[in-house]
């Protein structure tokens, strides 16, 4: 194998793969990146066995070939030679020589055959999503994914491809984020639910620059392709919890509040709240919301009041006389509020032990985005 390439270009593509390379792997071959050169097309492949990521770049190819090259050292050297033109040559003992105009570096590689390859399946379902949608929908939900490894069915984002809706849902049992694309037109008869693992979702979000995406899947495997990147991943082989029934339909108190005031207030409350429970208490009157946090253990306490208005309520309640009081884990509430893109947001409540629902004050076109947060019941 022989080719030449600019240092910064190689570094750019290597760093795309860097995050999938396991830091401490029991399989040493995974410390490598597989180089596969055909003509001027160089394919780079890295994997942690669960996820494979492949990128393709143009180089000046001189001789085709395949070899696995230790990722870390190659990335480090190419990063420091950004402006130089690198000439890379591999001999039949898998020894890699990199030459610049004034330097020569040698790295020992591994045979290409030792590197695992992703399973290429042919009869997968396919959907195409425009770049804006895919990344946006993942980013609106992924924060709610369950991060402990015990409840596997919640440890990813549900992609629910429906007749004429596309839904992304994530939950950790304490909150739930759901976003629906209403104008989704499916290209085929498929109606599928898949759970994209958290890590796979994070890789997609990192590498996708709002590029149009081609998503292929069956029950077990997922392949996502966009621009010059291909990601192969296993899906979570479990059924997503049935969540529709737990979304309250009768939250009658709907509150409108400034997003920035509330989120800033919550950030400050978190400083004074118990670091583990992160509990804040909201005391809502007809025109104001008091946000309180305390940690009596270390004598810290904070409270502030922000403006808010009721968009609707059941009518008979006088909140100035008896305020509506509800407590939350502040970081859940803050996460939800931060995802809203409008200046004002709506929060609806039923009672103080029922889920609160946050929504943007105005939904984006053809979209329905909500986040549900379970309160902390105070007795």
């Amino acid at each position, binding site marked *: 194998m022989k080719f030449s390439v600019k240092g910064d270009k190689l570094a750019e593509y290597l760093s795309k793969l860097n995050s999938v390379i396991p830091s401490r792997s029991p399989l040493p071959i995974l410390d490598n990146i597989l180089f596969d050169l055909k003509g001027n097309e160089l394919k780079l492949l890295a994997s942690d066995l669960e996820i494979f990521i492949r990128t393709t770049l143009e180089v000046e190819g001189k001789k085709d070939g395949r070899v696995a090259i230790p990722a870390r050292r190659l990335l480090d050297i190419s990063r420091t030679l950004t402006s130089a033109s690198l000439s890379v040559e591999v001999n039949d003992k898998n020894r890699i020589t990199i030459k610049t105009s004034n330097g020569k570096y040698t790295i020992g590689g591994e045979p290409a055959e030792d590197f695992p390859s992703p399973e290429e399946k042919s009869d997968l379902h396919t959907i195409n999503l425009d770049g804006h949608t895919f990344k946006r929908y993942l980013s609106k939900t992924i924060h709610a994914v369950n991060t402990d490894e015990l409840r596997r069915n919640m440890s990813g984002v549900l992609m629910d491809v429906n007749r004429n809706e596309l839904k992304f849902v994530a939950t950790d049992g304490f909150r739930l984020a759901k976003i629906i694309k209403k104008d989704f037109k499916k290209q085929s008869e498929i109606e599928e639910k898949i759970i994209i693992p958290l890590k796979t979702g994070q890789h997609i979000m990192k590498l996708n620059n709002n590029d149009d995406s081609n998503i292929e899947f069956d029950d077990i495997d997922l392949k996502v392709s966009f621009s010059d990147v291909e990601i192969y991943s296993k899906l979570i082989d479990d059924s997503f919890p049935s969540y529709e029934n737990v979304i309250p339909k009768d939250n009658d108190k709907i509150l409108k509040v400034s997003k920035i005031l509330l989120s800033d207030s919550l950030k400050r409350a978190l400083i004074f709240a118990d670091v*583990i429970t992160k509990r804040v208490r909201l005391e809502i009157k007809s025109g104001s919301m008091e946000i309180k946090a305390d940690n009596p253990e270390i004598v810290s306490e904070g409270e502030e009041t922000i403006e808010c208005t009721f968009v609707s309520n059941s009518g008979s309640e006088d909140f100035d006389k008896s305020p509506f009081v509800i407590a939350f884990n502040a970081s859940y509430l803050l996460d939800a509020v931060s995802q809203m893109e409008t200046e004002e947001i709506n929060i609806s409540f039923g009672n103080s032990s029922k889920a609160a629902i946050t929504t943007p004050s105005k939904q984006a076109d053809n979209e329905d985005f909500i986040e549900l947060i379970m309160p*902390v019941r105070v007795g």
Partner: protein
Amino acid sequence: MGSCIKILPLSLSNKIAAGEVVNRPESVVKELMENSIDAKADSITVIIKDAGKSLIQVSDNGSGMSEDDAVLCFQRHSTSKITSAEDLDRIKTLGFRGEALASVASISHVELKTKTGDDEVGTLVRIEGGEVKTAEKTNCEKGTSIAVKNLFYNTPGRRNFLKSNQTEFRHIYETFVRIAVSNPGIEFNLFVNDDPVFELKKSDLFQRIKDIFSDTFSDSLIEVNQGNEIIKINGYISKPNFTKKSKQDQFFYLNGRFFINRTLNFAVYSGYDDLIEKGDYPSFFLFIEINPSKTDVNVHPSKMEVKFEDESAVFGMLRSSVREALKKSDIVFNVGFDNTIKFNDTTESFHFTQPGKKEFSGHGIGTSFSGNRQSKSGNIHSIFEASKEFQEDKKDEPIVPDPAEPNIFSHTKKSETEGFNVWQYQYKYIMCQTETGLMIIDQHAAHERILYEKALMSLNSQSYFSQQLLLPIKVNLTKIDYVIAQSLKDEFRNLGFIVNYLKDNIVELSGLPSDVKPGKENKIFQELIDQYKEYELKLNLDKRDNLAKSFACRSAIKSGDKLQYQEMVGLIDNLFSSQMPFVCPHGRPTVIRITTDELDKRFSRS
């Protein structure tokens, strides 16, 4: 002077002997059920009222007794099961000593109805305090039915020693289960206060275990079946990843008789090798069959202990049977990459003396608390009013460093830790630099202390915080755990567990304490109950104190849990604002400290 020593009248000596055979209602249930089995019954019904204190009735369809036998059976050392000393070596029946009925009859009101297959009419015998009051003909089905009422009515001392109904019932429950497991071919029914607790149809061992415990439990079992001419072992053991934190659900039977033997427990554990962690216990149901002449079960009237002629052979056989069974079954044992490449315990060891140790060990439990506590003014008044009225209950507080002695911790103020380096050592200890040295905190013990105090506070304050769940979690309990859980309903709520009690021993958790690490809720809940039972037996704690300790022990972060910087700082902050930062609720130290002076000395710096 006449002679002082007299032979006791029979009624008195029976009463005394009764204490050994019958020490609680459970013993009566055991004796009667075993008699029914020995009478070759294939359907046995047990009726319990008031945890056996007012009524224990066992009815069977066994061989029954003739009129003569029905009266004779209440005589001491009367038995149909052996006739000569040689028979002792060939015992295949469960009972044989001939003490049980006589003992039971001497301390209660007994009503016996029995009829053999050959007789036309049956016999009714009523006995009070060992005296036959009536013996008459009666109409009844083939078999024997014995009702024992007002147990211990004439031995008030014994009666006063009985525990709560809940505890007594648990003993009965355990005995019933032990017998039911080992006799799957017999139909068993258990009624408690007229409610059916068990209705067990004839089946095989596996189905019987399934019926008594649960489907999920039986799914976790592996069959054991091995043997040679001398010893045969069969039964079931649990898969390594279904272990429990307490030694429950461990059943040994020798020739069909339940027994307890710690050495053999260990044989089973060691059969698992490294598949289970220390402190995790497998469940098992193991039946050992040996020629009765090679064992001695007549060690104690309760027959719970067994002597083996060659215990090491049994030990070896058990271990290898367990190993074989585990090897044959396909155990999916999930070892993540992270587990396999954890830091190995380094062989080099640090032999620092623990400066705090002297202070800790020098004081006994119960030292009164004085000083050395940060001012908690303002703490009690929380905006949540959580800590309404915290009753400081100090009598149970463990060891306290004496403030009069030079205290290694006296410099430790909360502020010392702020802005300093904090890091986690082997996911087990938190290392923290302070102004005057290095502080090492045991993360589990420290968190236990914090949670214990919080739990006690919420249990005493009648107010609670509970993070509500979007999707309630169902937990499958055994009947006895379900009963315990019900009895702790209010306490659970005060801790933050919102528990809904469903049918079939299932509970649903719809809210959790907000400081429990998510993901393990149902495990923590089950372990909490297990721990509660264990402490109840061992420590005789107050209900709340027990629950607070159990909760703290089971929901505290464990050694091996990775902590974020913020979590470590939070832990340290909370620890040092607790009432008793330096010892965990069990009295172990939470913090040790090595002063810079100490280090300097060790490195021979002057």
